[in-house]
């Protein structure tokens, strides 16, 4: 089982959710984050003084998947989140040693 973490542009969230639903993914967890990367922030003027918006709003999506769905899921996210412009984000994958569904106590792949 793998945990996929994707950092995407906020306005792509609906597309990504639809793409994931499309391949049968039933659950995900979403967090509002701020990103720093090649996509540079911008400088604004407020009352004549400058301020830098370094950290840009991003959305983090976490999806736990079974190994067999891994590639397909990555593919789905990568495609649906792509706008072709700098700042589209990253996908990170880590190995999950355990998954538990709190309600039923199921573990492993059943719990995803």
């Amino acid at each position, binding site marked *: 089982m793998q945990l996929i973490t994707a950092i995407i542009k906020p306005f792509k969230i609906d597309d990504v959710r639809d793409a994931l639903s499309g391949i049968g993914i039933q659950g995900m967890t979403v967090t509002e984050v701020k990103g720093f990367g090649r996509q540079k922030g911008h400088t604004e*003027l407020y009352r*004549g*003084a400058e301020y830098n918006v370094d950290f840009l709003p991003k959305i983090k999506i976490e999806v736990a998947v079974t190994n067999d769905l891994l590639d397909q899921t990555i593919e789905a996210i990568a495609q649906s989140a792509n706008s072709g412009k700098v700042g589209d984000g990253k996908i990170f994958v880590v190995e999950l040693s355990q998954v538990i569904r709190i309600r039923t106590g199921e573990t492993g792949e059943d719990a995803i």
Partner: protein
Amino acid sequence: MENSIFELQYALDTFYFLVCGALVMWMAAGFSMLEAGLVRSKNTTEILTKNVALYSVACTMYMVCGYSIMYGGGDFTAFLGGITADGVAGADEPATYAPSADFFFQVVFVATAMSIVSGAVAERMKLWAFLAFAVVMTAFIYPMEGAWTWGGQPVFGMYTLGDLGFSDFAGSGIVHMAGAAAALAGVILLGARAGKYTADGKPKAIPGANLPLATLGTFILWLGWFGFNGGSVLATASVESANSVAVVFMNTNAAAAGGLIGALILAHFLFGKADLTMALNGALAGLVAITAEPSTPTPLLATLFGAAGGVLVVLSIVTLDKLKIDDPVGAISVHGVVGFLGLMLVPVTNPLTADGGASFSGQLIGALTIFVWVFAASFVVWFALKAIFGIRVSAEDEYEGVDMSECGLEAYPEFTNA
């Protein structure tokens, strides 16, 4: 019959004073909202607390001694009893309106002057030090200069401003510049907010947390200003005074509109965006600019005077920022710099004649008198407070926000995460 007419005049003038006074009282809410909108959320509870407390302190201290210093020659005891009666005890002439209405109208002006200070020293000053200053300012510093101007007393027995051709209809100088002078002294002794300047001294922006509040505050002030200027005609129960009050309302509105447009356009050219906070400061600047003489300009001139205020305030804010005078809400520019402009515009439409009016030299002397007195006296008081108790919160408290350290309570506990 004649008596009935006198009674009606008395009643109408009194009611007019009360309505105008209530509008000026409402300005306290305006300052609170404006300042609460322009500080960061972590300093919001504290600025609100300062505002409600300073208003209360002002009302109480001006009653205890300020009013009698300003208008009563300092005879406190006779006075306190007198304002509930038909006339101020010991007054020479019978009143033409209720003395307590006059007190009510005057007391809310003091609070206005003091409100100006709270914004400028926001986000870093100790609450109790501020309130201690408020006590002295409203009990003594403001009433003294009030006595020399509206009170007609000679300045320390030396010269009488009225005789020199000084005229300040509703207080561009007496109220607004005075408040700004006290604020400036405080800001100089207090220093800039942490993070306001980069290591190499460039000003950094610290955006306010809640612009709808700041806008609401500005609208409240705009509304309240009709009372501030309109009430300063001091009578309405005749054709002449009614006309004057009406002109004052019209011009006050026109100047605010002009100020807003002036600031909006200049900010657009300077910064490339429609800067809302500058526009709001511009409206207030327009109001301050017309306050010294709202009854003589045409509405077109009033609009232009306001626009001049709006333009000046943008330039002033940027300049003070560069001079490291850190004023989170722009109070010193709006009320001080433009207050001075307002005084100097009086002779343009109301030149000195046998019947009154103002001369440029009189305005200059008056402005200097007010500024030097209020700045110097305030500096001494702030300095003493700084030496004895300290006036600035600790760096850690400033970082965490003065809401927690001074008030133990966040303004928006559920909305901000960091």
